[in-house]
């Protein structure tokens, strides 16, 4: 029997996932800066609201501003018996704990010959769009997806946020769970079903071109698809949801249908994960592609503060629509 899906915002869906996982497994703990004392008592975006009331300060801990130790202690705790969720206020700050993530958590299973599970979830938020500027707006998912041993989750919808967070906490691998700061207040149905890591989702069916996008770019790709539909272009949009494990199968199946591929991400385009997807696609689907795949990403700049500048460095729905038309061989007027 399917439960009636509730309408929840992304932050409430994440909050529900934490409550449900903490109820189910007493070994789950969470720590982060200001997670019980800010705003309405749930951290800067509310995700941990009422967690301390429900589960106590032993399992829900406010930390000092010490990202390196928050993360490396999170790793040590995960190796020693807890399922540890560490909230880092902005993903930019995770770089202070890069040793814990990249040298310790990512390698523990391998270098100790499989003895240790490291059930760590590093929850943070990335992305631009709300004027947080260069050190609070990066999209670092590509950096972490490059590291063997790390899983990278980039949820977009409330339903995915819920189902993927619960799966990430249950995973025995260290997981970088990157929420998007511009999507916390988006509302949508939440079925409360678990979603396995490594399973992409067809966000919109279409037959002319495949667009792979996540988070804010997913929203804009869907807008672009809507506007192109009026011009008779039928766009299929795929949200991979996790960058590692990566569900290329769903993408290949779509390319075989549409014969065209565009990838849009908010991470800097150069050396970004779009290149990885296109690299795989041309190797696997060369004969089924009618044109060269195309990619969009942020400009090779830090994220600027001033609103018009911020908007200029990140692909817009219009940019994505243009790239789709170019992928289909249409002439597109280039901006001066």
């Amino acid at each position: 029997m399917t439960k009636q899906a509730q309408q929840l915002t992304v932050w409430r869906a994440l909050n529900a996932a934490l409550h449900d996982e903490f109820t189910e497994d007493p070994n789950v703990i969470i720590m982060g800066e200001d997670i019980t004392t800010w705003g309405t008592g749930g951290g800067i975006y509310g995700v941990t609201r009422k967690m301390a009331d429900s589960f106590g300060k032993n399992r829900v801990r406010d930390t000092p501003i010490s990202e390196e130790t928050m993360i490396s202690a999170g790793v040590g705790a995960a190796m020693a018996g807890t399922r540890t969720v560490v909230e880092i206020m902005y993903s930019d700050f995770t770089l202070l704990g890069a040793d814990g993530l990249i040298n310790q958590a990512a390698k523990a299973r391998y270098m100790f010959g499989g003895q240790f599970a490291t059930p760590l979830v590093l929850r943070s938020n990335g992305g631009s769009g709300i004027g947080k500027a260069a050190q609070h707006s990066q999209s670092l998912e590509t950096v972490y997806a490059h590291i063997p041993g790390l899983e990278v989750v980039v949820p977009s919808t409330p339903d995915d946020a819920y189902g993927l967070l619960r799966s990430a906490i249950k995973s025995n691998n260290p997981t970088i769970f990157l929420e998007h700061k511009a999507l916390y207040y988006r509302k949508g149905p939440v079925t409360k079903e678990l979603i396995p890591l490594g399973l992409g989702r067809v966000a919109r069916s279409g037959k002319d071109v495949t667009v792979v996008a996540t988070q804010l770019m997913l929203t804009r790709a869907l807008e672009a698809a809507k506007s192109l539909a009026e011009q008779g272009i039928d766009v299929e949009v795929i949200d991979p949801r996790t960058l590692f494990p990566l569900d290329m199968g769903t993408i290949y199946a779509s390319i075989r249908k549409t014969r065209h591929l565009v990838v849009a991400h908010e991470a800097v385009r150069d050396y970004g994960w779009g290149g990885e997807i296109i690299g795989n696609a041309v190797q696997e689907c060369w004969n089924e592609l009618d044109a060269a795949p195309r990619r969009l990403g942020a400009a090779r700049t830090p994220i600027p503060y001033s609103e018009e500048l911020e908007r200029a460095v990140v692909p817009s729905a219009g940019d994505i629509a243009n790239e789709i038309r170019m992928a289909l061989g249409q002439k597109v007027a280039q901006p001066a």
Partner: protein
Amino acid sequence: MTTLISTAPALFELEVDGIAALALMTTIREFESRLPNYAKEGLIRGSTHPSVGMEAIAVGVSWALRNTDSIASNHRGHAHCLAKGADLGRTLAEILGRSDGYCQGKGGSMHIGVKDLGILGTNGIVGAGIGLATGAALAAQAQGRKDVAVAYFGDGASNQGVLAESFNLAAIWNLPVIFLCENNHFAQSATLEEMVAQPDVRQRGLAYGVHSIDVDGMDVVAVANAAIKAVDRARSGAGPTFIVADTYRYLGHMADDTEIYRTREQVDAAKGRDPIAKLAAALLEQRVVTQTDLDSVSSDAVAAVDSAEAFAKASPYPPISEAFTQVSEDH
């Protein structure tokens, strides 16, 4: 929440514990002393860091620990593992990159972990074990276990920021962690005096509100008793302790060390404080053992390491297919 006042813990007694501690220190020294030769023979790749001269610390601390306690070690960590109960043969097999090593040869000297013994790994990143041990202590506290965690690190790691952060976190949360600084006076080749404006390392713990003590790291009895008290504090909920153990490494930082940063006289002076000789002399003086007993401690150590060496050398190298496994657990 009430904290139980613990009864005074049983301290190290020469009559009861002396011979076993001597045997463990002697065995570790025999083990570590052979490593440079293995390196010369080409049996060890990369970097290996022997701890000859520093045995009293790992052995003393181990007197305070039980199996379910955790340790997080550093690049000079074989002694920490062996004192925590790691098998000589499997440890050496790991150092030689063999399939019978604790990590099937995938870790090597700087990445020896033994989950069942609470060994969260030797570590190639200076200071990293400090954060890991703090986390293991957090897990014990959060799960209501009475286990403790020990972070072993050197004076060099005392300059890493993670120590400052971990001191503070452990102090505000009363975490059951022991920060054990093995002050051997050299961070690779850099002297403590050159790299720290305040060479009294203990001051750093005090500044963060951590109970902090100095101990003679060349005296296993002193180390054991300091560790027993610190562990007792931690188990009773009284929080972390910072122990600064003064010591010295007799061999180079690693196999090809030219040691231009110190003199032969300085090394010889440190050997005058040798922890094994000191314990042996005390045991003889108090008539706990005879010279014959001491001789058999030495010959038993040689035999044990001979046997470990034979085991490790006979162990096959891992199959190439192993290079690609155990990165992530499959979903």
